[in-house]
Structures are given as structure tokens and as C-alpha cells.
């Protein structure tokens, strides 16, 4: 009897603690998300004062929209390039800092993590200055080593614009993931490395045979982070660095396209259709990346 009562009390306590959070979550996350789906079936302006139900018309338009396809392709580019390069760099620096016996280790950790403290807007502005066609440090820098900067500026040429935006995103992200990987590496018992050293295993081999398999779970989790953040961050960087969507639409991403449709082009229903697509896409992508990287967890 007593235990039943304390059980009930416990449940009630948990409910009291969680209900406010659940209510807030439902109000500001779930309801708007359902609303996005609902609004994608309407034709309406950004003020939504007048709605007209159009069924799946917006989705049909979306399929035939060449600009949307291009934006989607650019998004894939950012997801793949930013993820691949960031993961390699972050793992490399993490392993380097972990394995080396440098005295300045904490200093480097702070320096690498620093971009994360800055707001994305600050970083984008910083890179705009770096890429400035007339007084930017990059143009001046490459001139010293005898290379000519692109004639129309780094962000103005179709060949360089996407990579320049990606570089800013990578610079921002590396430190954060590096710290996560270092934390993962901290969990690996030292004796494994000692044995490997005794057996004469090289540092690189140690990384691939000990470090990476033992922290695979963390790498998997960060992959989902990468996908979500590459989609989200690209909006801020693209919007600030190439407001028109870059040369020939080369940097336009789905979210900037959605923003343009919603607020500049006053086509809110269609923008919500794009929103539905973004939702499904990131959801599916996260599932896929989870399934693909699934392997047995190595225990120690």
C-alpha cells in the first residue's frame, strides 16, 4: 500500500515537473510545425489575411521549379562538402591535440573553439571583409604568392563563391566538433595506447584501429548534427555573404529560397511547401545517415 502511494506521488511529481516543458514545447514547436503542413495547401500572401485552398498545387509547382532544384543541389553541396571537410579536420586536430605532448594544448583548444563563441552574423561579416574584392586580406595574400584573385571578387565568381561560403561554415564548425571528439577520446582507456606503443604501432594506425572504432558512436551522433546545422547555418551565411543568391544562383539554398518566396515574393503558401520539403528532407537524411553508419559498438 505504501509503496503504491509513493509510486503515485513520484509519478505526480514527474508530471508536475514536465508538464510546463511539454506545454511550451507543443506550443512553440509542434503546433507551428503542423501549421507549416497545413499552410502549404493554401495560396496566401506573407500577411495571411486572405487564404485560398489550392490542394496540392504548391507541391506540383515545387516539382517543376528549376530554381528550387538548383537551390536543393546547392544545399546538397553544402551538406556534403562542409560535413566531409569538417569531420576530417575536427578528427585530425582532436587526435593531434590528444596524442601530442604539447604544453600549449589548452591554448590551442581554446583558439580552435573560439569561432563557436562568436555569433554566425559576426563570422559572416568577418569573412565578407576577408573576401572583399578591393581591400580584403585574401586577395592581397594570394597576390604575394603570385596568384591573381578572381577578377570579379571571391564571392562574385561562380567558381569560387560556393567554396568561399563553405569555408566560413567549416571554420565556424571545426572547433566545436573537435571538442566533442576530444571528449570522446578522453573516454578511451590509456592502457590500450600503451600496449599499442609497446607493440610498435604507429600513431596513424593507433588512430584508425583504436581511436576511431572506440568513438564511433560519437561520430555517428555528430553526423546528424552536421546535417541539421549545415541546413540551418547555410541560411545565415548565404543571406549575409551573397544576398542575391550568388553568381548565377550558385549559393542559393532551400532556406534562402523559402525566405525569398515568403517575404520578398509574398508567396507564403508556396514557401511553406518548401518548408515541408526541408522538414521531410532533413528527417529522412538523418534516418539514412543513422542507418548507414550502424555497426556493432566496440566495447572496452
Amino acid at each position, binding site marked *: 500500500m505504501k509503496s503504491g502511494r509513493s509510486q503515485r506521488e513520484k509519478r505526480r511529481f514527474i508530471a508536475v515537473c514536465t508538464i510546463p516543458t511539454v506545454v*511550451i514545447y507543443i506550443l512553440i514547436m509542434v503546433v507551428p510545425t503542423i501549421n507549416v503542413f497545413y499552410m502549404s495547401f493554401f495560396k496566401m500572401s*506573407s500577411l495571411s489575411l486572405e487564404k485560398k485552398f489550392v490542394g496540392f498545387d504548391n507541391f506540383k509547382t515545387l516539382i517543376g521549379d528549376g530554381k528550387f532544384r538548383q537551390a536543393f543541389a546547392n544545399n546538397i553541396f553544402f551538406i556534403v562538402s562542409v560535413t566531409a571537410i569538417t569531420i576530417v579536420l575536427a578528427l585530425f586536430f582532436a587526435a593531434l591535440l590528444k596524442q601530442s605532448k604539447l604544453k600549449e594544448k589548452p591554448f590551442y583548444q581554446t583558439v580552435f573553439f573560439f569561432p563557436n563563441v562568436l555569433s554566425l552574423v559576426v563570422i559572416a561579416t568577418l569573412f565578407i571583409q576577408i573576401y572583399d574584392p578591393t581591400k580584403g586580406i585574401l586577395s592581397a595574400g594570394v597576390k604575394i604568392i603570385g596568384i591573381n584573385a578572381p577578377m*570579379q*571578387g571571391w564571392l*562574385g*565568381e561562380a567558381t569560387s563563391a560556393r567554396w568561399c561560403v563553405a569555408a566560413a561554415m567549416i571554420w565556424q564548425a571545426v572547433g566545436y566538433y573537435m571538442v566533442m571528439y576530444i571528449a570522446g577520446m578522453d573516454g578511451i582507456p590509456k592502457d590500450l595506447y600503451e600496449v599499442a606503443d609497446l607493440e610498435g604501432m604507429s600513431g596513424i594506425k593507433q588512430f584508425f584501429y583504436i581511436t576511431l572504432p572506440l568513438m564511433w558512436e560519437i561520430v555517428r551522433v555528430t553526423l546528424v548534427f552536421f546535417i541539421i546545422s549545415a541546413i540551418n547555418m547555410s541560411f545565415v551565411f548565404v543571406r549575409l555573404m551573397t544576398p*542575391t543568391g550568388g553568381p548565377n544562383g550558385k549559393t542559393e539554398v532551400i532556406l534562402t529560397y523559402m525566405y*525569398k518566396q515568403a517575404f520578398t515574393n*509574398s508567396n507564403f503558401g508556396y514557401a511553406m511547401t518548401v518548408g515541408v520539403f526541408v522538414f521531410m528532407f532533413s528527417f529522412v537524411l538523418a534516418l539514412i545517415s543513422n542507418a548507414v553508419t550502424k555497426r556493432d559498438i566496440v566495447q572496452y
Partner: protein
Amino acid sequence: MRSYFKKLFALICVLAFGVMLLGGCAKVSDKEAGTDPAATSGKNTNAGAEGQKELNVAVFEGGYGREVWDTLAKKFAEKHDGVTVNITANPKIGDVIRPQIMSGNPPDVIFLSATNESGILQSLIQDKALLCLDDIFDADMKAKFVKGVFDAPTVSPYGDGKIYSAPLFYSTMGLFYNKTLFKEKGYDVPKTWDEFFELGNKAQGDGIDLFTYAAANDPAYNEIVIWPAIASAGGYEALDNCFNYVSGAWTSDAVKKVMGVYEKIAKEGLLLDGTLAMTHTQSQEQFLQNKALFIPNGNWLENEMKDTPRAEGFEFGFTGIPVFNEGDDPCVWSNIEEIYIPSKAKEADLAKEFIKFLYEDDSILLLAENAGSLPPIVGAAEKTRSVLSDCVYETYAISEKGFVPVTGGFALTEQTEVSIRDDLFNSINNVMAGELDTEGWSKLVEEDSQKLSEILLK
């Protein structure tokens, strides 16, 4: 049992606290939305008292700041007993007022032109959410205005001649150049496009490029060149056809000639290097340094760049758009900036009074002096000559040099994914990069135009 009540009480307290928290949020945003501390200065507290009226005015804060609006608000309040005017000014005013409009609580007066990227005016027109302003613009009032301003699609959008937004400012835009540089080097201001390119090649010998514009953030500045050039090449009818999506308008000779100008600038390498990565401010900085001869811009340029270092002796010069053949009518682009009242405005009558007040002589003088802008009223430039800077006056007096001001804008349509402005103006960057030619460009815009012609707003 007692402990049960105790817990129930605690639960109610927690929930009440949560509700208060959320309620608190709503209250704060209400306050932020409606008023502005600078203009109300405590008067707001007795706004609910009898006879007290509050007029909420949302204005776009451009290069001139908000002071002039605060002064106007004060003057208006002095004339009307018991009226408080709250000015909300912001460079991103569209984002500020959008949620207010959506929640059915819009400002009483909005000054935000149709060319603003927020698209607020277009949305209000599409949703039929503007108040008709015909009582302000009776026959007597209309007669004072420059011909044609009431035909603009944003002013009378539904084709029935009824006015839904008031043309508050009117300005003439064209090509700016440095008078001192032209004098020093012995350049003449080109009257035809041939002379324009001749000058470009000559200047390139002196290490100066011909042209630059706000490619990275707003290539639409080129409307200053494109619209009048079409009007001068094919007559106003050609331009009108373009605006109204008449079939074949965008593949007409006049349009192709104009697009050809851009292709030629690209092919002959007359565009300032780096332009494609420059925002409007960056390109204007380069222009002030004599890196480029011409920049398409408006009369705010001088004030916007007043703190920017420039070439020695720099003096703003202003000219209209060159013509293709001698004897063609030279044209220049004139733009209107609209002020309007949402139909859900709480103080609609007072809002109308406020707009009328802005057209009074004193207000015109004040706006001319502090914002460098004039309403499209005949003779306004002469009346305010004493307070206008030379450069600004020159833009208004351009018609005296024989340039015909043309104005207009794309006819409005239902919501669509097609953005003809983007395809027209952003494509300039592609032309400059050599990735698009006149043929492809005109075809792209014509396709948009055909799609839009089917969904014109009625």
C-alpha cells in the same frame, strides 16, 4: 487528504506561474510593437483617457534617419488636441510591422515603398487590406500633382482608378559622375550610347572603368537605366507593354537593344573589376574614389556617403540615360515612395488627416530640408530650392535639360513563385560574368512575363 490538497494547490500555483510567464511574454511584445519611447515620452500612460487619441505611424528609416519624422509628429500633435503620434522607425520596418498586420493590429499609417524587399505593400494590395484614399485626393488636390503619378500600379492597383496609396516622395534617378574628374580629363557627358562606350574606352586608357553597380546585394539599382532606356528606344508604349506582360514585350527590339548595352559593357571589359562581389556601399565607395565613371543611383547618394573618403575635389554630377539615336527622347527614371493606411487601422480618419498634413507647404519644406525628398507636386523643387543641396536639386531639375521623367512598375499579380524582377535584374550579374547573352536573358524574362500575364490581379 490534507497533503493531497496541498499538492493540488502547489500544482495550481505552478500552472498559474506558467500561464503568467507566457502571458508576460505577450504583454511585452504588445508594448514593443505599438509604441516608441522617444516620441511618446510618458504621454502614453493616459492614452486611454477620454478624448485621447493615439496615432501609430510606421516609417522606413532610410539614409536620413528618423528625426524628421519625430519633428513632423510633434507638429501634427500640436495642431490636433489630445492626439499622440507614435513613430516607429526602423530600416527593417517591414519585419517589425508584419506580425502586427497579421494579428489584425496594424499601424495606422505605413510609409514603406513598394520597392522595399519586404513586399509589405504588394501583400496588402493582394489581400485587399488597404483603405481607399479617394477622399484625400479630390479633383483639386489631384490637379496639383505631376501627371501620371496616380496611374502607377501601386497607387491605383485594381484598375478602377481608385487610389489606395499616396505617392509621398518622388525622386529622379539616373547616372552619377564626378564633375571634377570630367573637367580635369576633358570628358564630355555622353548623350548617346555610342558616346558612352567611346568615353568608356577613352577612360580605360586613363585607368578608370566605365560602370559599376550594387551587384552583390541589389542589382535592381539598374532599373534606373533599364526602364528609361526601353522608353527612349521604343517609346513609352514599349515600356508599358513590359510592365503589363504583353506577349512579346520582352523580346522586342527596344528591350534587346537595352540588354545589348549590358552585354557590350561585359564584352568590352568596361565593368569595374570586383563589381560582382560588391554591395551598394562598396560600389559607391569605389565610385567616390574615381575607380568608375558612372553609377546608377538616386538623390540619397550624397547624404548616404557623406562620411566616406573620396577623391580630392569630388563633386557630384547627375545625368539621365543616354539615347540610342540622336533625336530619340532622352529619358530618366522617376520613382515614387508610397504611404498608406491599412483598412484595419484603428484611427483611420486621423491617419488620413496625417497624410493630408504631410502635403502641406510647411511639411514639404521640412521633408525637403531634412530628407532631401519632395512629393510629386508641380513646382515643389522651386519652392524648396533654398533648402535643397545642389546635387539633389539637380536631380529634380533634370527635366529642364530635356530629359523626360518616366515612371511605372510591374502590374501586380496573384501569388506566384515567379519573380520577374529577380530574373530581370539578377541576370545582369550573369551577363556581366559572360554566362548569359541578350538572347537568353530576354527569353528568360519573356517566359516569366507570359506566366504572369495569366494571373493578373483584378
